[in-house]
């Protein structure tokens, strides 16, 4: 049961059942559709970027508990952040899921997102946890409207 609880922590279950920012923001400057062909999970991420800051962010779609909770917590973590901080957070998050932790290694700016560390033990589920993040990245990269991070 311990491994089960390590993976499906209460915070994750809570976000999967009651996803936050599960909506389309009033203004959207960037959006992208992400899909995991393995399981059919599909999310659309919507972002409202203003002067290099993520003013608002939301998502729609459906997926497993891990992918839904990850999308939900991603939106919570990024709202109000600069694009630069957002990109850095994705790098930290990706490292959390894929690289075994060194003792005493700093957890950086991950905060609550650290609850996903259990996913590392389930390599096939890493795609679930990163689906929304990759979708966000695609949204920001593709629609490179005159958004300046400088």
């Amino acid at each position: 049961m311990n491994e089960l609880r390590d993976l499906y922590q209460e915070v994750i279950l809570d976000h999967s059942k009651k996803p936050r920012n599960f909506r389309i923001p009033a203004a959207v400057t960037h959006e992208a559709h992400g899909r995991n062909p393995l399981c059919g999970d599909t999310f659309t991420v919507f972002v409202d970027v203003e002067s290099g800051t993520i003013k608002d962010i939301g998502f729609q779609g459906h997926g497993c508990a891990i992918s839904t909770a990850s999308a939900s917590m991603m939106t919570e973590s990024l709202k109000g952040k600069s694009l630069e901080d957002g990109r850095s957070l994705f790098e930290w998050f990706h490292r959390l899921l894929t690289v075994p932790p060194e003792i005493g290694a700093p957890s950086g700016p991950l905060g609550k997102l650290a609850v996903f560390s259990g996913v590392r033990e389930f390599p096939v589920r890493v795609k679930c946890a990163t689906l929304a993040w990759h979708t966000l990245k695609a949204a920001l990269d593709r629609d490179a409207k005159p958004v300046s991070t400088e």
Partner: protein
Amino acid sequence: MSRPRPAVSVAPFDVERVRKDFPILARSVRGRPLIYLDNANSTQKPQAVIDAESGFYREHYANIHRGVYLLSQEATEAYDRARERVARFLNAGDPREIVFVRGTTEAMNLVASSWGRANLKPGDQVLISGMEHHSGIVPWQLACEASGAVLEVIPVTDDGELDLDAADRLIGDRTKIVSLIHISNALGTVNPVEEIVAMAKPRGIPVLLDGAQTISHRAVDVRALGCDFYCFSGHKLFGPTGIGVLWARESLLDAMPPYQGGGNMIHQVAFEKTTYAPLPFKFEAGTTNIAGTIGLAAAIDYVEGIGYDAIGTHERHLTARLADGLAAIPQVRVLGSPRERIGVFSVTIEGIHPHDAGTVLDLEGIAVRAGHHCTQPLMARFGVPATIRISLALYNNERECDALLQGVSKCVEVFRG
């Protein structure tokens, strides 16, 4: 030392003894005994198959049909014996009707490509069903694209059965071939293929049956079935991966152009004109999976040694136990309720994504498949993107079925609320 046998009757099928034939069943996963319930995906291998294949490599291996030396002769004889073994297994008329391929997928591609090229014209109809595996759909789509033929589909009922009235209406003058899955890999439905054959035969329409899910559960007699093509994979019959079988009537194979060109499939090669080898070698270009055929023959020996009657009785018992247990969990929905089925169940659990359920079960040491099972159109028919699929084989036992049911209940518990 020998003592008279005790007078008690010996059980016809002892699952615990069968389990000992499969070394992998002794291992644990995540600290628990392995419970392997992904048999519709692929089956585990008995020691007899492992020994046959490795013994061939240790003692008899050489390429076939090419050497004048003893070793090549031994390998060729073993290969030919394997083909004869498969022919007897399917009750084929002649070993020349047995073509070794990589698996069911390659067999379907061979027929769609070769037979399709020779026979399909614009406006012709290729008839498949709504419960085909992707390997029973995509090769025909390719053949239709190339020829201008039209792919049409026998619908699936809510019970997960073929709509036979619709089939009867669809089979007509334009129908050039009917290609059907014998037993559904996603629903477990045993299709009444004899009835479809009876509709097609009077019109002279050939019928292909995908037997990938059939061969580990039921005896197959291609002549009794009355079909024209039959294919299966060794790895779903407790045999090696990368080896499969296409059976077809000799007259059909004779008339079909080669599928692949190369060594072994030729009679004589000249730049002006090449002539092809006789059956079945015309369809076996290059060096085939020789060791795989040896392993496959051993797998057939193994299964027939146990006997399909005994396997059927055992599996029907477990299938009923699973069906009852699943029906007793209110949050579980089983896709389809066919009148005749094997121990393959596609289920969804209310409010729980199949991948999450798959992970929870994995932590219990239970291997099931979560996904669309290469049947996306069928999943769409039932309005789900994916399911959890539980599939039995002869080595599963009651304890494993009960553990699965407990695991499903645990999924419900973890994600409740």
